[in-house]
């Protein structure tokens, strides 16, 4: 009996969980649930997952009931006479039944699944598609839009896709160092970024908003903070963003001192700022740093204090990241931060 009560508690827990999976009290848009898709590939996967869950759920219900029935009906009673029950060695008919039925179930499941595999992986790229090259680094994301002449990092902007004139984003994935994986659950299943290998994936978002994700393949110490933010913009917003990103860095005379600090310290070894001498590729492109909501691949909000802290002591924000502590004097640090704050 206590077992039944315990099972009841678990079922209640699962129902609560289901409620939360489908959007609970936390700000729903921030929950990257695979069961709240907002993009075509994620939709296909969701529909498939419902079929799979229904079938496996039914199997579970049947076998669960049989097991519960068996252990209750065939338990040894208190008044047992001690004789052995009839010794049954097997039954060919029963065996055949419970071989054939699972085989049929597997066949159905496979056919349904194979269709979805092909529809996602072999989808043709429509002419209006945006092309993005994503390169994984320890522990940040490089995004390039070759056709649009844009280079940015960590925060991906894509246009929302209208079914009458689709503008999905087709991504080419690779890595500069170890294996990574691009996972934004509400937009698509994950695909790995592997050095010396080109992978492909696509997303086709239906609604504007910010979608959260992060690296899903262990890549080293700061794998946990290689976060992703995908900004699905309206077509106008996206065009505006592209126009701004294409421009070289803002040249603001009041930040000249900071620019000097940047260009004469090791910053230029790793970072690029277009329109200046800085052309490093090891770290993120900083040309439009201030257009991003976060720094350090989502590990900290993009505020002057956090930026200063990041430059002074990256380990305080992301211990083990490959950004070195720059050992600058406070005066230089202030100037540098002021300069970086001008890079809209």
């Amino acid at each position: 009996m206590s077992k039944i009560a315990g099972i009841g508690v678990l079922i209640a827990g699962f129902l609560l969980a289901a409620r939360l999976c489908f959007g609970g009290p936390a700000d729903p848009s921030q929950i990257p649930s695979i069961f709240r898709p907002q993009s075509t590939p994620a939709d296909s996967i969701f529909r498939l997952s419902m079929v799979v869950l229904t079938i496996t759920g039914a199997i579970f219900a049947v076998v669960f009931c049989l097991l519960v029935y068996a252990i209750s009906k065939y338990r040894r009673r208190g008044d047992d006479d001690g004789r052995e029950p009839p010794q049954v060695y097997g039954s060919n008919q029963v065996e055949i039944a419970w071989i054939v039925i699972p085989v049929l179930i597997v066949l159905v499941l496979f056919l349904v699944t194979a269709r979805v595999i092909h529809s996602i992986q072999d989808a043709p790229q429509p002419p209006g598609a945006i092309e993005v090259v994503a390169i994984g680094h320890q522990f940040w994301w490089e995004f390039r839009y070759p056709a649009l002449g844009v280079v940015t990092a960590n925060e991906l902007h894509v246009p929302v896709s209208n079914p009458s004139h689709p503008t999905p984003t087709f991504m080419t994935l690779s890595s500069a160092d170890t294996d990574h994986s691009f996972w934004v659950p509400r937009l698509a299943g994950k695909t790995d970024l592997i050095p010396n290998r080109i992978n492909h994936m696509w997303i086709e978002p239906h609604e504007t908003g910010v979608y959260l994700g992060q690296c899903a393949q262990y890549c080293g110490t700061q794998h946990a903070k290689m976060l992703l933010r995908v900004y699905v913009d309206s077509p106008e917003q996206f065009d505006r963003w592209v126009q701004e990103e294409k421009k070289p860095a803002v040249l603001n005379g009041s930040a000249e001192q900071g620019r000097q600090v940047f260009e004469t310290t090791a910053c230029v070894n790793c970072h690029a700022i277009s329109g200046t001498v800085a052309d490093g590729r090891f770290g993120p492109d900083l040309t439009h740093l201030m257009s991003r909501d976060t720094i350090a691949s989502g590990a900290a909000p993009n505020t002057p204090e956090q930026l200063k802290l990041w430059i002074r002591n990256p380990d305080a924000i992301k211990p083990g990241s490959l950004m070195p502590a720059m050992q600058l004097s406070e005066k230089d640090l202030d100037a540098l931060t002021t300069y970086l704050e001008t890079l809209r």
Partner: protein
Amino acid sequence: MASETIAITGTAEIGRPISERLHDWIVTVDHKKLGILYIVYSLIFLVIGGVEATIIRVQLIVPHNQFVSPQVFNRMMTMHGTTMIFFVAMPILFGFGTYLIPLMIGARDMAFPRLNAFSFWMTAFGGLLLYFSFVGGNGLYGAGNAPDVGWWAYAPLTSRAFSVGHSTDFWTLALLVSGVGSIGTAVNFITTILCMRCPGMTLGKMPLLAWLNLVMGGMVILAVSPLTAAQAMLCIDRYLGGHFFDTQAGGSAVLWMHFFWIFGHPEVYVLIIPAFAFLSEIVPVFSRKPIFGYPVMVAATVCIGFVSLSVWAHHMFTVGMNSYANSFFTITTMAVGVPTGIKIFNWLGTMWGGKIHFRTPMLFCIGFLFQFLIAGLTGIMLGASPFNWQLSGSYFVVAHFHYVIVGGILFALFGAFYYWFPKMSGRMYDEVLGKCHFWLFLIGFHMTFDFMHIPGILGMPRRIYTYEPGRGWEIWNLIVTIGVVFQAAGVLVFVVNLLWSLFKGEPAGNDPWDAWTLEWSTTSPPPDYNFATIPVVHSRRPLWDLKHPEDPDWKYE
């Protein structure tokens, strides 16, 4: 029964100095002592691995926790996985097999007793080598550290460029060494089962435990060898300047994945098949019926053995294989679920119409049945490639495989412990403590691993030392961590029960369970020579035939 007439009463044992008895254990080639050595070794590492898991869960109880640094966390998650698979699960299952197989097939020892001892000590040394990394990982000048590359050690994270120092080498070499031990044990199992059965025990009449360990042995020699090869290649890369997995030189990171998973997937079947063996011995005895469908159980196991060699890339669905490859591995993965499911049905059929005794071994087996059912079904979900693109690399997978390994294998192991403890020690364990262990552990297991599926569905990847607040993951991580307390309590009760019963338990007698296989015909514990005269058998349940001469098994099958 003649096999018990000359029992060693133990009086000769008392008075022997402890150093001599210890020496006996170290130089022994007796399969029973080696089996116990394997089991005790594994239990120690179970506790250590459990501590590592606890550290992981405490760190993850709230977001942005600072219980341990990311570096320490990554070592904990690597060591937890490596320890549990290679130095807990494999040795303990080898240990039970080593102990039981000769007894159950009517032999005096394994085919190669010295190889048996060698294999155990290789495995043991491998574990010690791995843990020495905490001290020696960075060489003499740095503070030591343990490997932190995950238990799969994906390339190129393991190259010299990204894994500085020797911590990765400890992983590689420890597993190479223990891998040699595993292959030795497997060769021994196969040879013993094929060549040392007592007269009358044809392959169709041997206990299912023997059959399943035979299949397991075959899988070990086919699966562990690729890991050995891959690790040799990794050593060549790291020390001889080789380029097997050097992506800068045109090498392939995916090649490591293929090699690793060609080992890694059959490995999990290597672990589950002996657990199936325990079920197949315990469920019949406590249902008072023979196993339902013995030939089908054998066929299903052999089938699993073969098909499981073809599913490995379902661990690589996200790697960018083409749609045909993904479809192939989807169907093989789903196909292997069929013979596995058949086994569940056959155990159900064994209980059906029986008289079930809810003693502790049976409780754990019943837990296994429910939990393995769920684990198998989440496995089918993961086998559907597109669904896998969302679920892999997340806490859903972590929940799935812990459901199999803890909810399945560990439960079956606990059942096996309680079932054969009387035979191995000569004493009965305490039944109340046993049931206490079961319920505590059951509650803890479900608290942790049921709810662990949810963060995975909500987008939480695995192997992260912390996570962002506001994504809906907090409550689930909290519940998951609290479940650890109950599991730890259950294991504590288990250890107390074992130790107390070892010294103070009731004498068990030869056959406390009224069972039917040959090991129950010897004394508890069995004498060194197992059987005074080698038995001759005529059916799958020789002791049933003896106890029921009017209705022996050989009349029916």
